[in-house]
């Protein structure tokens, strides 16, 4: 077994109850992969996130959604109808043992069930309740409908993504939800830190819209109030960096960004060596990006003459050898085969008992003492009902059966 499989866990001893849809499951994963005991509570029959396509080997099944598998690693899974009387009772008992509850219900839903922050605080004053909603717990839009693309729109990321002549476009996957989840993970840990000092938990109110505005703030209010230019999408180059953008190679594309005078000089020399271009060495192009701003199109031509003579790999490695920030525009396949990532053992194989194994994206960070680790694959529907309710809470087998028959679990 590797060190990662046997080492100490940063969050061991922390217990999290997760009642989360696609907006919050990545938060639970972040906590679980660092060692927290994350108990995923699904409605009886399983959550709708199990139906998100595509599926492993294209076989639709509640345990084969790739989104579900990825975002629920290291968690235990139980089912519970928290709207039923018995369900509430079990949930309260679990909440007494937990450090944190993560939920993505509409604002007010848990309160109406008698399970709002105040109710939970009475049971367990150290508890942190982290709520992720589309717009937050307050405000005129709090009951509005949203989705990933609507959050990307209101959050401002779409307006500044893609080509100038194309409509605004969203990023791959679900970045608004991922950022709301990441914010929730950060805030929850800060709240837990505070709680362990003061003895008092708190309600964490995460808005998907605000999380999206926040991570795209380079294009935001500070810059605009200063220069009066509203940032919009403008292709692959960034306005403030000249040159920057994607350039063609013989077998694909590379991305280049120049921000420092020395980096420009190294690039100009290389272009000159390979293409014989003398003009590129002109001192009028030297200095910070702002001096090259008027010549962006011309310089793009010069650079394309260089890059198109080589393969992506040649430009990438020779460029980097010359201290020029070239990187490949990678496909998923290229990322999976990337020599650097492979040498770092980034991808980790996950065994799905009885069904097979394949590699998952690995640790976003490497802790020297408490390594990130996938402790188990995503749970099946109610996989840990017996273990949690029977063994840990001591609910008699008889009663478990009747709860099952009543549709509570």
């Amino acid at each position: 077994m590797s060190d990662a499989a046997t080492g100490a866990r940063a969050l061991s001893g922390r217990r999290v109850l997760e009642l989360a849809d696609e907006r919050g499951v990545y938060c639970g994963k972040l906590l679980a992969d660092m060692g927290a005991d994350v108990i995923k509570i699904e409605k009886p029959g399983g959550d709708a996130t199990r139906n998100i396509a595509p599926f492993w080997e294209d076989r639709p099944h509640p345990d084969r959604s790739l989104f579900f598998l990825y975002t629920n690693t290291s968690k235990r899974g139980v089912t519970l109808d928290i709207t039923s009387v018995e369900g509430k009772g079990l949930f309260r008992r679990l909440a007494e043992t937990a450090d944190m509850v993560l939920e993505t219900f509409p604002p007010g839903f848990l309160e109406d069930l008698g399970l709002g922050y105040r109710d939970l605080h009475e049971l367990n004053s150290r508890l942190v309740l982290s709520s992720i909603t589309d717009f937050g717990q307050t405000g005129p839009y709090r009951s509005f409908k949203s989705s990933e693309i609507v959050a990307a729109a209101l959050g401002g990321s779409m307006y500044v993504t893609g080509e100038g002549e194309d409509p605004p476009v969203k990023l791959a996957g679900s970045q608004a939800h991922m950022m709301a989840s990441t914010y929730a993970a950060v805030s929850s840990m800060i709240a837990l830190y505070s709680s362990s000092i003061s003895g008092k938990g708190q309600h964490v109110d995460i808005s998907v819209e605000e999380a999206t505005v926040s991570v795209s703030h380079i294009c935001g209010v500070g810059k605009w109030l200063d220069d009066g230019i509203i940032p919009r999408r403008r292709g692959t180059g960034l306005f403030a960096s000249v040159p920057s953008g994607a350039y063609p190679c013989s077998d694909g594309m590379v991305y280049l960004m120049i921000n420092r005078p020395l980096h420009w000089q190294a690039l100009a020399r290389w272009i000159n060596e390979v293409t014989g271009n003398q003009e590129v060495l002109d001192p009028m192009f030297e200095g910070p990006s702002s001096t090259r701003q008027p010549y962006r199109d011309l310089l793009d031509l010069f650079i394309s003459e260089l890059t198109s003579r080589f393969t992506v790999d040649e430009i990438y490695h020779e460029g980097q050898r010359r201290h020029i920030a070239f990187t490949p525009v990678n496909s998923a396949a290229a990322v999976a085969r990337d020599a650097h990532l492979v040498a770092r053992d980034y991808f980790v194989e996950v065994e799905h008992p009885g069904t097979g194994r394949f590699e998952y994206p690995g640790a976003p960070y490497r802790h020297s003492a408490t390594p990130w680790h996938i402790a188990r694959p995503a749970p099946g529907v109610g996989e840990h009902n017996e273990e949690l309710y029977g063994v840990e809470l001591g609910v008699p087998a008889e009663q478990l059966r009747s709860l099952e028959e009543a549709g509570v679990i």
Partner: protein
Amino acid sequence: MAAERQALANLRVVEFAAALAGPWIGRIMACCGAEVIRVESKKRPDVVRGYVPPWAPEMGVQPQLSPWFTDWNAGKRFVALDLTRPEAVEIARRLVAACDVVIENYSAGVMDKLGLGYSELRGVKPDIVMISTSGYGDRGPHHRYITWGPNIEALSGLSKLSGFPERECTMTQYAYPDTLSALHGLFAVMCALDHRSRTGEGQHISLSQTEATIAVIGDVMMEYLANGREPKSLGNRSLHAAPHGCYRCRGGDRWCAIAVFSDTEWESFCDVLGHREWRTDPRFSTLSSRLENVEVLDELIGRWTVGRTDSEVMFALQEAGIAAGVVQNTEDQLHRDRQLAERRFFEEVPHLKKGTVIAAGIPLGLTATPGRSGCAGAAVGQDNEYVFSELLGMAPEEIRRAIDVGAIENSDDR
């Protein structure tokens, strides 16, 4: 009610960092009450300080005025040390000994070469939590390669997997890997602090921005890893919903995003658009038929949206219970978004040179310990006096000597 103590009020952080991905970690911690001290040198200024105000270019470079410097550094303390001097390294070590967390994003190997690597700092402060963030992480064949945030969008697969199918590289204008990495980095630090509070043990964290970025598109990557197939770029479309897209509205570059999931939503949608007949139209009556005929569906919807303003479209659909939202730019967010206004998302931040400035808030949503951005616009070495004399207890003599040998640099501001 008495003011609550801030969540991270008992933490002290020292930052050897520049640009965005490292400094934003400290910025958020400062917002939560941590004392965050940035070490800088005038000899190697942060690129963000190389700022010429666009409204007065004749002023030249103004290291305190950059709005980005505010966004990523408000509320921190600033000291000036020339770390190429051994005396300065000694002072930096004393500073680390008084801290809980070290944040660094210098080029690969620089901290070690300066004598400020984790193994050294652990000797000075055994339970220190140190995070190093870089494009590639601290080991592996390419760990010395240089990157900026946008490079990572390409390297991680994000820019190829995103956008319309006919586009090979779709980029954001906001260096997304920088901010997403900072959030992952802060989470990693808080986990390490949780472990420290239980065990007394510190540790080193190395964050590769490439790996953090792959993590947030991990679900998309799984299509290749599990099924051996390159994921399709979907643009604004969805496998689960139609209509699902971004529709042109009245005016230039104005758009509204719309997503219709359930059959009930689809029926209300037809009513709002005044096309009840679409409900029974065989091309559109079920989700699978709508997905099959999505081109013509999108075109028909576009004919309706283009005659209306983006807000009219959004509010008409929201009233009918359908997810819709204006594609907002930064001006819309500041002046038109009633939700952000009501929640006071944008903050007025005190600024040493400008009085106050407006900045995006840090939406942590900590209702009992809400946090607040401290002062922005500090000069290099602004807080030399406080840090060296009050915090480290250096005698005036000692400070003078350090200045004389060039270890401590004088502040430009006084």
